[in-house]
């Protein structure tokens, strides 16, 4: 009887697919993160030199997370959940976040805001938005700062209880956002040479800290399915690679496939994170500023950024600019 039960199975493939898909709908984020569907338990790494709008993408993802799907007849297209923001860079600007949220609430979709901004119909002070929804969304955004890797580890270890507390109130957490995962890399690296008493004692080195961080995040993602997005600043660019690319970009007949070919061969930056983190990341996107500037209006000159998916490796580049209302793709 047991063997027969073992052969006949628990559920059909159709039932399993229905069960899994109903719980884990893919997240469709705003451009330039829209090319690849992201699911809970994915870890997305946004890499780029400074400045390349990485934190801005995080803020935009957080906004999409806290907004509801529909409210009072207006479709916002959000994920209706909590967002947890761990700020290791300590540069987060709440005014910018609040302003972006107000703009999103005033007009339902991002493209509408852009059109109205271009017509200069919305002034900064007179944005009409739903006060109740604004407060609700702001309350769904949880923020903590960490000034060193100990505080970061302490935060991660106690995050589980915090999320459980929120779940007890009926709120589900959809996103874990970490600004600059490599923030303490150099400090930890410099303190590696401290000798410790006891032969097997774990020393506070980059390796052990990162391994513990990866372990804690992995456990959190197992217990609470959510999407993890981390930014990483590239410190020393591969100069020869950059110069070769610059030379190619200046040629008039450069096609995207050519650039894609170069970057597909080697990483365009030097990877400094330990392999524990590198293997943990499931998706990776590279941002970098280009030399072009887009003149939107007379007094506004926006610099254009490139975004390129490294993992999964897509062979084309997206171009985007950062305006007051957010990130917009440039054709």
């Amino acid at each position, binding site marked *: 009887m047991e063997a027969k039960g073992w052969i006949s199975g628990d559920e059909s493939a159709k039932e399993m697919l229905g069960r899994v898909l109903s719980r884990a709908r893919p997240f469709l984020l705003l451009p330039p993160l829209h090319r690849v569907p992201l699911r809970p338990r994915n870890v997305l790494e946004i890499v780029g030199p400074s400045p390349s709008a990485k934190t801005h993408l995080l803020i935009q993802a957080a906004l999409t997370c806290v907004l509801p799907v529909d409210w009072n007849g207006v479709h916002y297209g959000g994920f209706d959940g909590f967002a947890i923001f761990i700020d290791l860079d300590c540069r987060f600007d*709440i005014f910018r976040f*609040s302003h972006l949220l107000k703009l999103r609430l005033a007009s339902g979709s991002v493209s509408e805001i852009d059109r109205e901004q271009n017509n200069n119909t919305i002034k900064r002070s007179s944005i009409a938005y739903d006060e109740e929804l604004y407060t609700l969304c702001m309350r769904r955004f949880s923020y903590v*700062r960490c000034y060193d890797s100990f505080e970061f580890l302490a935060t991660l270890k*106690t995050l589980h209880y*915090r999320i459980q507390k929120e779940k007890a109130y009926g709120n589900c957490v959809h996103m874990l956002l970490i600004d600059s995962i490599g923030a303490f890399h*150099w400090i930890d690296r*410099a303190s590696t040479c401290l000798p410790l*008493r006891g032969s097997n004692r774990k020393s506070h080195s980059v390796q052990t800290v990162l391994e*513990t961080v990866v372990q804690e995040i992995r456990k959190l993602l197992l217990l609470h399915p959510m999407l993890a997005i981390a930014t990483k600043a590239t410190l020393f660019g591969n100069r020869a690679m950059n110069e070769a690319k610059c030379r190619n970009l200046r040629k008039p007949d450069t096609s995207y496939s050519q650039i894609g070919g170069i970057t597909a061969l080697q990483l365009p930056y030097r990877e400094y994170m330990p392999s524990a983190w590198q293997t943990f990341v499931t998706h990776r996107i590279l941002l970098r500023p280009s030399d072009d500037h887009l003149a939107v209006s007379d007094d506004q000159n926006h610099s254009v950024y490139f975004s390129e998916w490294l993992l999964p490796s897509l062979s084309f580049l997206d171009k985007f600019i950062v305006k007051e209302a957010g990130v917009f793709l440039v054709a």
Partner: protein
Amino acid sequence: MAPLKSLEQEYPILDSNFQSFCASHDIFSVEDLLLHDLYVLAAFAEQESSSERLKQGIAQVLSIIDGQHQPWLNGIELLEDAQRNKHVLSTGCEGIDLLLHGGLRVGQLTELVGPSSSGKTQVCLLAASNVAKKHIGSVVYLDTGNSFSPQRVTQFICQHSDPAIDQAKHRTLQKVMNNISCKSVFDIFTMFDVLHQLEFNLRSQMQGGDCKVQLLIVDSVSSMVTPILGGSGSQGIHSWHALMISAGYLLKKLAHEHNIAVLDPTLRIRLKASDLKNGFRNKKGKNQKKGRKIV
């Protein structure tokens, strides 16, 4: 972070039994506990004779760890704190105020970048005199290159006042100059020392009054770090990087926790043609909407 032994007094559940259990897993301090998997530790505790007490000890340590990180804030609380405490300090120069969208932001570290003799120290002195004069708060000036000039500050202060009333002017001048405290630091370790002392003073100080520090000027961090750059090969560069980043974090922490605006003029050395483009872009960056150069 404390060794477990010293926590026994305050938390009697972390007794010698708990400490020897932890020692058997090479854990001697809270620091070590942060690097260990607590669930695995709890599983090991199951196998011990006094498992209940040990697990209570682990729970106690977890609550100690919970107090080790910064507090969680939601969006509304963050916004309220920013609106209440993080206002803008005018630098005294309209052009720069325009670029910075009002002035130096309290709670943030603003970096002034430029080649030598481009007026960075002058802007710092002007900002110091402006903040002290308007009685917004007191100014702490950390001077690394003997560039602080009281005569220049006096000039800035006396610029706009009425030349007729001499005695009153002298008294106001005294009061304003008392609001600026200048310290000379010539190496990075002295700077860390001074900043830690400042942090301690601020934490134990009573709030209120004019004597609250509002502006901290460090002129300049980069000049103290560059002598270390010439260390032994790659090791020198790594320690340089770590020191710079630690200094940055300390300044950011001071700025945010104690509501101070930090100003740091930095010398930008042009090495190559490609770097020249980067330096130019940084200056242009100030004109962008989001362009405050914040470190």
